[in-house]
């Protein structure tokens, strides 16, 4: 009997030893990654936070910008680049649930791993382009955006002080038509302001309870979310009573048990924006001194991070806010991470990393804080295929060194950011070049024997101008018929070609010295070069005089002011700024 027991024991031990002897995936060095020009790759052996839970070691396969497999070990088609990322943590690109977007904001956000921003008030003219971008999986250097467009406020209320004339609402009868106008402008959801301005000591007119309730009902009738900026606890109670789906700030003042009960009862989500509370409290955020962030902070971001609210320094405000957030979290209220950038003391992208830290300080676990910046935002604003790593999700990803589930500040140590599966070239502002090799710029930019070779029309209409252009590939040349009209501050019409597939992604053109062109036209045309750290930067311009007959030009690129050949993004050929009609025929353009 004993001998049998011993035999059984030996068999069990032998089996366990066998299990331990079975081979595990090897872990090659992370810096041995190949340079990839596409949006198909597999990450091996990485710790994954999928938006809700943690997986200790998984493979993530991205196929043309979409996560197509996610498991313990993914068998991968031959030829797909493999990136080993053992010991690092992969997260869905973060979502910032409260921003105000203009200028280079979405580029700044993406650089810090934010893939989608929920804008709470911006010019509605930017919404159509944002919608097109977020539907595509093309290469982009900008975060995607969902937006409230114009926020809804009372005449002279909070929101009207920014020097931008906006329509206002002052009675319940107008609310349905008013909300319908916002939706027609492209608002993805409706944001209301209930703010008496007591926070900064001046009484402001604000939406009354009746108007707010009617307008929120109108938004709901269009199946749109209604979110409210409520300044004080009393205003928050009013907003919840009126049917708000979410509060976009934590409110000032103590939260009564009745208010908490109402928030829980009505399933209202809260975007605390603790970073901006910290700024209002006059406390430094320390972000510009963090060596993990500092190289990627551009001058405008740095300026924002150290700026202060006029009259800030009410110390109690952050303490109260943290206590409120803890109570909300304990009660099971959905909290979303939002930065309210670019308010004083904040900056796009950078500040969300501080928000995560403040949420943890308020009492959330790192895991809950990370969910509040990923899956929770996607769920609250109904953004499909975002904020999660799963089969079918958009490959907006951020890879960080270390484990943010233990120390949430590890999200700052970004190793790589992917947008639509394309590796983002994180621009640096400390003099160092970007850490990864850029794809090489193509030499031949057009021969036009077989179509337009990727050239497309460009006019000042995006700036409100009236110029027009038609392109045609005829007899081996690109025929550009431009009609420049006055209207825009800088009128133009012509043709453009991106270095890579229609976007503004940078390429390395430093091996080239000369641009040769075979061209015909009459008058002055402008050669434009889009290059440098920002896709939004002003292009370098080289005027070229044409004499009416076919000309072969060889242009020395070293002499072009403002041209950064190490990051060449696109070239353009335009008529203007003088008004008039012009035909430009381009037979060939080659970098040499």
């Amino acid at each position: 009997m004993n001998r049998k027991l011993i035999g059984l024991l030996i068999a069990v031990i032998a089996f366990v030893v066998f299990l331990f002897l079975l081979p595990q995936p090897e872990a090659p060095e992370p810096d041995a990654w190949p340079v990839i020009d596409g949006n198909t790759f597999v990450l091996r052996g990485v710790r994954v936070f999928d938006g809700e839970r943690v997986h200790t070691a998984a493979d993530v396969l991205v196929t043309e910008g979409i996560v197509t497999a996610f498991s313990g070990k993914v068998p991968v088609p031959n030829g797909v680049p493999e990136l080993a990322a053992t010991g690092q943590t992969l997260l869905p690109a973060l979502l910032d649930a409260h921003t105000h977007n203009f200028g280079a904001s979405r580029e700044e956000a993406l650089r810090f791993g934010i893939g989608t921003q929920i804008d709470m008030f911006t010019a509605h003219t930017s919404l159509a382009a944002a919608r097109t971008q977020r539907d595509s999986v093309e290469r982009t250097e900008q975060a995607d955006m969902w937006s409230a467009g114009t926020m809804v406020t009372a005449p002279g209320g909070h929101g009207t002080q920014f020097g931008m004339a906006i329509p206002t609402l002052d009675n319940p009868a107008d609310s349905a038509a008013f909300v319908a106008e916002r939706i027609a402008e492209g608002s993805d959801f409706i944001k209301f302001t209930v703010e008496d301005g007591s926070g900064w000591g001046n009484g402001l007119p604000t939406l009354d309870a009746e108007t707010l309730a009617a307008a929120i009902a109108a938004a709901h009738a269009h199946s749109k979310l209604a979110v409210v900026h409520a300044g004080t606890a009393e205003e928050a109670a009013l907003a919840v009573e009126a049917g708000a789906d979410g509060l976009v700030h934590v409110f000032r003042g103590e939260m009564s048990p009745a208010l908490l009960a109402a928030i829980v009862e009505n399933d209202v989500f809260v975007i605390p924006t603790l970073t901006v509370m910290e700024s209002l409290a006059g406390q430094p955020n320390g972000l510009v001194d963090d060596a993990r962030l500092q190289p990627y902070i551009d001058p405008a971001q740095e300026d924002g991070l150290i700026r202060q609210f006029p009259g800030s320094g009410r110390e109690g405000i952050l303490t109260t806010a943290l206590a409120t957030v803890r109570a909300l979290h304990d009660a099971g209220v959905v909290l979303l991470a939002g930065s309210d950038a670019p308010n004083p003391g904040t900056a796009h992208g950078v500040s969300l990393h501080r928000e995560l830290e403040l949420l943890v300080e308020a009492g959330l676990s790192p895991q809950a804080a990370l969910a509040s910046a990923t899956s929770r935002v996607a769920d609250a604003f109904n953004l499909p295929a975002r904020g999660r790593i799963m089969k079918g999700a958009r490959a907006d990803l951020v890879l960080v060194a270390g484990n943010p589930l233990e120390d949430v500040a590890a999200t700052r140590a970004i190793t790589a950011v992917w947008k639509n599966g394309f590796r983002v070239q994180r621009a640096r502002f400390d003099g160092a070049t970007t850490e990864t090799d850029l794809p090489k710029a193509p030499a031949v930019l057009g021969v036009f024997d077989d179509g337009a070779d990727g050239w497309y029309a460009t006019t000042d209409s995006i700036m409100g101008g009236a110029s027009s252009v038609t392109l045609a590939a005829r007899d081996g040349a690109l025929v550009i018929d431009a009609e420049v009209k006055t209207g825009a501050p800088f009128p133009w019409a012509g043709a453009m070609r991106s270095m890579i597939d229609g976007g503004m992604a940078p390429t390395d053109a430093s091996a080239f010295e000369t641009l040769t062109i075979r061209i015909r036209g009459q008058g002055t045309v402008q050669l434009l070069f889009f290059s440098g750290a920002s896709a939004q930067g002003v292009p370098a311009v080289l005027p070229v005089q044409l004499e009416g007959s076919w000309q072969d030009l060889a242009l020395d690129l070293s002499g072009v002011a403002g041209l950064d050949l190490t990051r060449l993004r696109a070239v353009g050929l335009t008529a203007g700024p003088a008004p008039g009609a012009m035909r430009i025929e381009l037979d060939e353009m080659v970098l040499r």
Partner: protein
Amino acid sequence: MVIGILGRETWGQFISVWRTPEFALPTLLFPAMFYVFFGLLFTMSRSMHMPTWLLATYGVFGIMGPALFGFGIGIAVEKGEGWLRLKRVAPVSPWVPLFARTVMAMLFALVVFVILASLGALFGDVRMPRLDWVLLAVTLTVGAVPFCAMGLAAGLWLSPQAAPAVMNIVYLPLAFLSGLWIPLMAFPTWMQQLAVVLPPYHLAAIALDVVGGKPAESVPLHITVLAAFTIVFLAIAALGWRRAQEA
């Protein structure tokens, strides 16, 4: 006391089967041989890691054999020899031999796993996180239970003469149509849809999820389906048991 009887009964079952070459050899050798041929020697697809994929599916194939034959043929033969009658009057619950047979099938499943895992790791470059190896072993071992129930139902209904033939006729097509030999993707669509009604398909789906071959849509769903199959087979077995008693 009961555990002692159970242990001896299980050990007896295992030894008797182990010493029956016409049972042990095919059930252990076939999966290993097929895996070597189709998983390691001839790699049909370049688009996936075949040794990893087929480790999961031949694993399922491997554990089906001992469960189906151990129960299907074993029970039918015992029934024919009058053993069942004897055990019915023996002072031991009739559940003991059934449970012992199940444990035997699971032990065989472990042996199949050890053989296939060794082959895959040594010659097929199969690499998995340790947790996945353990999960695969657990999946294949516990996954034997539905096939035990299936074998039990067959064994109680079939005559000892018919049992071996029927089990062989069921065993091989069941494995093939469930995509255990060749990945289902290689099949026409209607055959892929047919596989959904076959129990091995669902166990293979779980095993493939474990090894990362193909993330399952829903592992709990596959587990539920297998549990449902088990209950149905046990119900059929219960009817068969009643009929055998009446006979």
